[in-house]
């Protein structure tokens, strides 16, 4: 490196250099100072709004108060679903100084089992600061007060009063109302509502609770509190009360609903009762059922397993999702179709114990001799209807069936329906790529073969025959046209007359005549084969293989008001299993006391009301003893 000529280094030079460099350093310091002032100005003036917001959101903690759910009431205002006060105990981790002692006390006082203790310990580990950990929800007054009196010795415990969903009639409304439950992660993802993760908040999970969720949910209240960084509440700022959800008014008659549910006894089945004036559904029952109260409290796994294990399928709503061959209950419909297609109802056909079609002989249940149309309905003569079906073909009858609501999916609140099949030649071609045959017509006309319907459709069909109008079933006050059916009065009269004879003449359900003066019920029984006749006669043997018992009916005969459709699974026959149920609840509708009398006598034989029986069955199941799967035959 070539030496550069530099000035000689002297004390004076060093002094000048020092002054220069000190000024450089001082200048740099000043520059940093100006930069800091600028930065501070930027943060506190330009970004001020943003940081004010952030400091407020730090300071103020919004606690949501879950809203009280709206009630679900029946046509008279009786609650089918309401709210009751729910007492709960939470733990505040930061106030919990002597964890072992407090938890031990809680365990003895509330009789918490090992599972519960494990959950509490796990939640305590995950929770931080002042975030509450639930110890027990839905406590009894006794448990709650036992904690309250010991509150001073148990630091860290926070008692709370909230609301829980309550279903006064329990299992009777299980399938109709559905139930509520805590939202799951998926539902939270979808809703993105902070309320969904608020402890104690429940949403409708099934049935009407789910369908009317938006109406029922209400508006949450909010409590604004000032909190420290660790979550400790310093003071309350303001509280906005919650707004209870709206009330849903149903067409259901709570008394009837409960009566029908109880009257089903130990049977598995469904019954729907419709008001013939306007299509109001008065009862909508599927039994056995679950107790929606159990679901709302968070059902235990063993209780759920018990429900699932039951071969009577209490988790399935049979009223809309049970499909059954309707059997002879479709004969009044076939009669209407026949008259509409020009058959004279007084024309007679002779039953010789069956009907010959080509080389096959279709059997009748008896040998009825010469019958006109009403008496064929009364006797439920298959031969007569085989003859009609062979003469007209089922394509002539299927449209009538559809006009009466069979095979139709109704716009009905809260129900998912399986709407079954009313077959015709086009349907068979589409489905199986086969020609419709005469024997298909014969099978269909007696409600077997491809035909399947649900109990709701049976009730609608009956209500339409009874009223002569195209009644549309409804659970809430929706306006439907309900225009008259395009059938001749003569055709409807024949069907009604036949149904009257079934109960009040010499028909299949004479034993189910109403025990009332001046009020009569008309109806039609049905017995649906579960298996082919080759494997048994359907009247005995294993429950699973017995015939279904069906009944459709309306009352009073002369001025129809109530129509119903009932299916008793494996009830062995409509006259035996289903018609007596209809008789009793129809009696109840016209004479409540008489109806209750009949029910209480029966219930005593079945082992008490529904809840008692369910509790006992569950206890028995839990203890491993198998409860009797064979239901007693109601009479």
């Amino acid at each position, binding site marked *: 490196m070539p030496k550069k000529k*530099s000035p000689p*280094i*002297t*004390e*004076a*030079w*060093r*002094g000048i*250099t*020092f*002054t220069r*460099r*000190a*000024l450089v*350093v*001082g200048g740099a*310091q*000043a520059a*940093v*100072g100006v930069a*800091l*002032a600028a*930065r*501070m*100005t930027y*943060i*506190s*003036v330009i*970004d*001020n709004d*943003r*940081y*004010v917001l*952030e*400091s*407020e959101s*730090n*300071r103020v903690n919004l606690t949501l108060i879950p809203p009280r759910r709206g009630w679900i009431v029946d046509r008279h205002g009786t609650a089918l679903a309401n709210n009751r006060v729910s007492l709960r105990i939470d733990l505040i981790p930061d106030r919990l100084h002597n964890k072992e002692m407090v938890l031990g006390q809680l365990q003895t006082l509330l009789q918490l089992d090992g599972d519960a203790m494990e959950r509490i310990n796990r939640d305590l580990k995950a929770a931080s600061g002042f975030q509450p950990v639930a110890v027990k929800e839905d406590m009894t007054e006794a448990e709650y007060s036992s904690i309250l009196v010991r509150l001073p010795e148990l630091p860290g415990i926070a008692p709370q009063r909230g609301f829980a969903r309550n279903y006064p009639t329990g299992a009777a409304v299980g399938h109709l109302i559905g139930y509520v439950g805590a939202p799951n992660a998926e539902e939270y993802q979808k809703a993105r509502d902070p309320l969904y993760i608020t402890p104690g908040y429940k949403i409708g999970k099934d049935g009407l609770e789910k369908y009317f969720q938006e109406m029922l949910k209400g508006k949450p209240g909010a409590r604004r509190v*000032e*909190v*420290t*960084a*660790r979550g400790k509440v*310093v003071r309350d700022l303001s509280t906005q009360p919650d707004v209870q959800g709206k009330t849903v008014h149903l067409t259901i008659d709570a008394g009837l609903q409960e009566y029908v549910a109880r009257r089903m006894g130990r049977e598995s089945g469904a019954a729907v009762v419709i008001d013939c004036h306007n299509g109001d559904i008065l009862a909508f029952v599927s039994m056995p059922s679950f107790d929606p109260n159990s679901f709302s409290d968070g059902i235990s796994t063993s209780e759920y397993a018990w429900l699932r294990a039951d071969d009577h399928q209490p988790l399935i709503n049979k009223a809309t999702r049970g499909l059954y061959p309707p059997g002879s209950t479709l004969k009044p419909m076939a009669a209407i179709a026949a008259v509409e297609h020009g058959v004279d109802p007084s024309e007679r056909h002779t039953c010789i114990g069956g009907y010959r079609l080509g080389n096959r002989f279709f059997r009748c249940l008896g040998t009825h001799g010469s019958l006109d149309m009403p008496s064929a309905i009364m006797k439920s003569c298959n031969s007569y209807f085989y003859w009609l079906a062979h003469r007209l073909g089922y394509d002539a009858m299927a449209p009538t069936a559809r006009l009466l609501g069979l095979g139709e999916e109704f716009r009905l609140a809260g129900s998912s329906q399986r709407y079954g099949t009313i077959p015709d030649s086009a349907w068979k071609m589409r489905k199986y790529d086969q020609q419709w045959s005469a024997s298909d017509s014969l099978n269909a006309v007696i409600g077997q073969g491809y035909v399947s319907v649900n109990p709701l459709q049976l009730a609608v069909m009956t209500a339409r025959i009874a009223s002569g109008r195209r009644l549309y079933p409804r659970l809430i006050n929706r306006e439907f046209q309900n225009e008259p059916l395009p059938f001749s009065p003569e055709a409807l009269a024949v069907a009604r007359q036949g149904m009257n004879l079934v109960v009040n003449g010499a028909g299949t359900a004479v034993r189910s005549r109403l025990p009332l003066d001046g009020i009569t019920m008309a109806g039609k029984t049905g017995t649906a084969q579960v298996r082919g006749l080759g494997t048994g006669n359907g009247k005995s043997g294993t429950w699973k293989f017995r015939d279904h018992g069906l009944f459709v009916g309306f009352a009073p005969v002369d001025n129809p008001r109530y129509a119903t459709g009932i299916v008793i699974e494996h009830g062995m026959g409509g006259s035996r299993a289903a018609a007596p149920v209809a008789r009793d609840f129809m009696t109840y509708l016209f004479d409540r006391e008489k109806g209750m009398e009949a029910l209480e006598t029966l219930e005593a034989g079945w082992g008490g009301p529904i809840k008692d029986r369910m509790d006992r069955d569950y206890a028995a199941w839990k203890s491993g003893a198998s409860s009797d799967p064979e239901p007693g035959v109601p009479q």
Partner: protein
Amino acid sequence: MIPVPPAIQRIPWKLIAILGGITGFGLLVLYSAAGGNWSPWAWQQGVRFLVFLSAALVIGRLPLRIFEDFAYIAYIGVLVLLLAVELLGFVGGGSQRWLNLGFINLQPSELMKVAIVVALARFYAQLPPGNTRTFTALWPALVMIGLPAALVMLQPDLGTALAISIGGVVVMFAAGLPFWWFGSTAAAGIAALPILFSFLHDYQQKRVLIFLDPESDPLGAGYHISQSKIAIGSGGIGGKGFLNGSQSHLDYLPEGHTDFIFATMAEEWGLIGGLALLFGFFLLLRWSTRVALKGRTRFGQLTAAGLTMTIFFYIAINLMMVMGLAPVVGIPLPLFSYGGSSMLTIMTCVGIILAIENDSKTGSRRFH
């Protein structure tokens, strides 16, 4: 005119006003940070200030000669203390910084900030002018800075190590070492940043990374910076008012009475309070810079310049940190933050600078 006795005239009233103003403002903030209480911080800090101020005034009356004479001994003594910390010091807050002497927890790295400046000033004052641009001027200084900086890094205390280095480097710069040495070292240093980074402790590395992207860890290490910016930003121009800061009172601001006290102040006093404090520090640094420029001896000039830088470094790094311009390093705000060690250091610096000022007033001969 009332004659003022010379003894009173000699007292640096202007300086006391500046120091008292800054510290008094700090006491108000400490009072608020304790939720409107003189204890536990404000009262003790006030007493401490009076004690250290008296000490500084006493130091300021000492002849400058003493500092020059004892410069090396002091430096070696503090270096030994630093070594002792490595061997015997107790661990607090994850690092080993303090030496328990029974009555006081001494932090020798604080003393080193002063000792290194004084020792280097003496070295360059004695160095013949002709050697200023030779290697002889460089290597002893590098060793003198390198040893304590390395020891402090071992504690580990990155902030103090940087403070020691910067004080020393400014003395070297002021001593007139070739400009390009500093320029090329700075360039090399920037190039070597990744390597230096790898020498840092995990938590220090994390702080640097989070400083570069605070949002990556809003609840963890980035929490300090975020909450500090929220406190300053939400104060606005006029602040939320005395005793009304929610960030500090509700514990959102960690260390609201020590390292992050500026944020505590800015929340309640706003931009006006912040600029006032900056102005106070400006007056203090202007005073010490003027002392350096007017220094009678070369030792005095270099010492004053170095100590000014030491004070400035505290202020600048702390403020940059709380405003999110620098990573979180544990450096308090001089006179403002609660704590004895930093106040001891600052007051020692002030005392020595005062001695230099007195020396240039009383001395008869300037050397150039």
